[in-house]
């Protein structure tokens, strides 16, 4: 009964922790490892035109459906223009309007996108397109091409591939040539293919986008072919018929219409530039959480002032140290001075580094012990004696710092980070154990404490551990669950096996 209650609690804690952790990793994309860099891409469209005498209306397609990419932020920069965005066939349009705009006008659209493999293209099923109405000889040529392709294919994708290959042959036959000659550019070719596919009653359209390459000014618009295979939209290379989409392809808009359309102006031009910005994966994840309206980040240590964050990046490690201690004491069977003394020492080691920390700790405790033994002769009452040891510890720390600084060992300065009260208590307890149980026991327990502290330090020093508890404090629920389980662990401690080893050969003796 009690066990079931405990198991339920442990399970609930662990699942809650894992669920929040999973959500933050899988959906919000919080990095599992520290100092991960994620790429974001800034795409800038500079729209320019000469304003005419009357009102001007400039419409620019802006990205909406970007398979493999997600929008982090976008800005529209213009001065004195009315501005709106709306959904249009083929994508989303930004529209700038102004009553009078003399001279050369420049407007900017800037978007920051990041790779998000979970983003899919559109998944709505389109209707079957009407067969295109073409003049002769195009209508007959189309029929021949489509029929030929259909014979050599199994489904709509392979039909489209066959069609594309036919049109792209180095020396096309006359039917293909007929269409080839009217399609000079890649875009026109893709457009033609989608028309032919409509003849085969296959929904297809041209996607236009840019290749995300670093420092691309004047990035070219690359057309791609998108067709619906009855299940989902698939991408085809309009030159080779291969079914793929380059991973750095950012779909911008769809259809035959141009990127920019200006009414009432002339010499319209649009220049696309692409820039890669490596960004701390953490920042990206925060932005993403923000965008999704997730309040998880607001209620995490990341929302605190930086100084407080630094404190918590420290404090959140204490449970990890406590877990190490719990295991070392209750499963292995180590003995230490004070339950959590080793964790605090380990925290201090984080600043001093291990070796220097061990030396400094041993130094202070040994000197403190000497003083404590001397004080014993003076027969002081307990509390003043403890205070005296504490004062001596502080003075010793100061002396070590000054001496180390003089000698140029800057690590000696970090001795100030040792928890002095804990040191004083350790000295007191060690001296009592020394007197009551002998030097051997005292030194053994002291070394045990140092060993445990070092181990806790090593575990708390793993950068991955530091990163995980700080970015995912919910993992502390897992540690809590582990602790609860440990609290019901009634098996042997490993060192007890040694202690009771006389039982091993007992059968033969008695």
């Amino acid at each position, binding site marked *: 009964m009690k066990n079931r209650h405990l198991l339920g609690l442990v399970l609930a804690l662990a699942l809650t922790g894992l669920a929040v952790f999973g959500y933050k990793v899988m959906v919000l994309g919080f990095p599992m490892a520290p100092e991960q860099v994620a790429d974001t891409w800034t795409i800038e469209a500079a729209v320019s035109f000469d304003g005419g005498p009357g009102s001007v209306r400039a419409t620019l397609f802006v990205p909406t459906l970007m398979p493999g990419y997600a929008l982090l932020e976008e800005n529209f920069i213009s001065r004195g223009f009315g501005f709106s965005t709306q959904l249009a066939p083929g994508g989303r349009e930004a529209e700038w309007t102004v009553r009078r705009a003399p001279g050369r006008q420049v407007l900017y659209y800037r978007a920051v996108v990041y790779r998000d493999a979970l983003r899919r293209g559109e998944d709505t099923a389109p209707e079957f397109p009407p067969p295109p109405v073409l003049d002769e000889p195009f209508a007959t040529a189309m029929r021949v091409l489509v029929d030929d392709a259909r014979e050599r294919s199994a489904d709509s994708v392979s039909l489209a591939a066959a069609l594309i290959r036919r049109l792209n042959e180095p020396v096309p036959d006359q039917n293909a040539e007929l269409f080839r000659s009217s399609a000079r550019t890649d875009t026109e070719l893709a457009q033609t293919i989608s028309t032919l596919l409509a003849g085969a009653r296959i929904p297809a359209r041209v996607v236009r986008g840019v290749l995300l390459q670093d420092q691309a000014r004047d990035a070219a618009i690359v057309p791609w072919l998108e067709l619906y295979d009855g299940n989902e939209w698939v991408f085809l290379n309009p030159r080779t018929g291969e079914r793929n989409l380059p991973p750095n392809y950012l779909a911008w808009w769809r259809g035959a219409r141009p990127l920019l359309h200006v009414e009432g102006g002339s010499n319209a031009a649009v220049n696309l530039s692409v820039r890669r910005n490596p960004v701390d994966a953490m920042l990206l994840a925060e932005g993403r959480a923000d965008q999704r309206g997730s309040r998880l980040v607001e209620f995490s240590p990341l929302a605190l002032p930086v100084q407080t964050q630094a404190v918590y990046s420290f404090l959140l490690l204490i449970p990890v140290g406590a877990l190490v201690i719990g295991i070392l004491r209750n499963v292995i069977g180590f003995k230490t001075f004070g339950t959590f003394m080793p964790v605090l020492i380990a925290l201090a080691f984080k600043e001093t580094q291990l070796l220097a920390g061990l030396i400094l700790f041993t130094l202070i405790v040994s000197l403190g012990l000497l003083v404590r033994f001397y004080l014993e002769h003076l027969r002081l009452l*307990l509390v003043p004696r403890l205070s005296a040891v504490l004062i001596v510890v502080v003075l010793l720390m100061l002396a070590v710092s000054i001496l180390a600084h003089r000698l140029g060992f800057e690590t000696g300065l970090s001795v100030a980070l040792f928890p002095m009260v804990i040191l004083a208590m350790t000295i007191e307890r060690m001296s009592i154990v020394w007197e009551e149980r002998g030097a051997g026991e005292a030194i053994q327990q002291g070394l045990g404490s140092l060993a445990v502290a070092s181990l806790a330090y090593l575990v708390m020093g793993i950068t991955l551990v530091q990163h995980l508890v700080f970015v995912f404090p919910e993992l502390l629920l897992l540690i809590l669950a582990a602790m609860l389980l440990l609290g019901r662990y009634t098996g*042997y401690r490993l060192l007890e096996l040694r202690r009771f080893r006389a*039982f091993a050969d007992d059968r033969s003796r*008695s």
Partner: protein
Amino acid sequence: MMTLWRQLRRQGVLGLNARNGEFILPTNDRRHYPLVDDKLRTKALASQAGMPVPELYGVIETEHDIGRLGVMLEPYETFVIKPAQGSGGDGIIVVVGRTRRRELTFRQVSGALITLADLQHHVSNMLNGQFSLGGHPDRAMVEYCVGFDPVFENISHEGVPDIRVIVYRGVPVMAMVRLPTRQSGGKANLHQGAVGAGVDMPTGRTLSGVIGNEVIDEHPDTGMPIAGIAVPQWDVILASSARAADITGLGYLGVDMVLDRKHGPLMLELNARPGLNIQLANRRGLRLRLEQVDRALAGRGDVTARVAFAREHFAHEPQG
């Protein structure tokens, strides 16, 4: 290692985690702890119940009282000073004589001399909680120094041998005799180097012993065989142990008794978290016996019935 684990498991050896988690936590109500953690309260309780305890000579509660320590000790040649809430025998001073040279000096059982001033400082440390669990302010008690029964004379080195009985749900389940050695400085504490010798529950005869974790057959200082000595008044010891469980309400309890030459078995102190070395001394695991008590629900009977149960079931037989 797993073989060792399984061997211990099969023989019912109780580990610390299991002792705490499976026996102490469920059966020892925390509110009963002060009764055993404070030896003065234990003593009062036992006296009320008519159980023999060492006579209390006096209690020192304040720094001011320390001044009259000399006067308090005046009538007694031998005495023991101990912290009321001490643990593990820490802080106990056994005085067996006095010399008056330049200043009043006492001779301890170990032969070391201690001046009254040193003694007063020691008592002051006791009051300040140096020896108590958690460093709480404490009281010092001065009591009768047991003139121990010569039965263990050959197998102990100075000091007072005592008898530890583990009582579970009112039933004495295991016992050992603790024999001081030179190494333990006259103290009967196993972790200080005393010998622990198991006791056969039905007969009260000693078995072989252990020092630390090592099994021995002879006392290291006297060289005499440890096994085969009949503990006098064994039935009284078992009955008192069973009674002790009743007066404290603790389900899992260690009872420490001494054999006094004049007064017979006296109860020294009780322990709510008795150590596990008794298993080594007896070379038997506690768990099997504890579970036997659980099954029999013997805790319900009166003292005689429970002692009878223990004598019937917990004989030290060769293990099969």
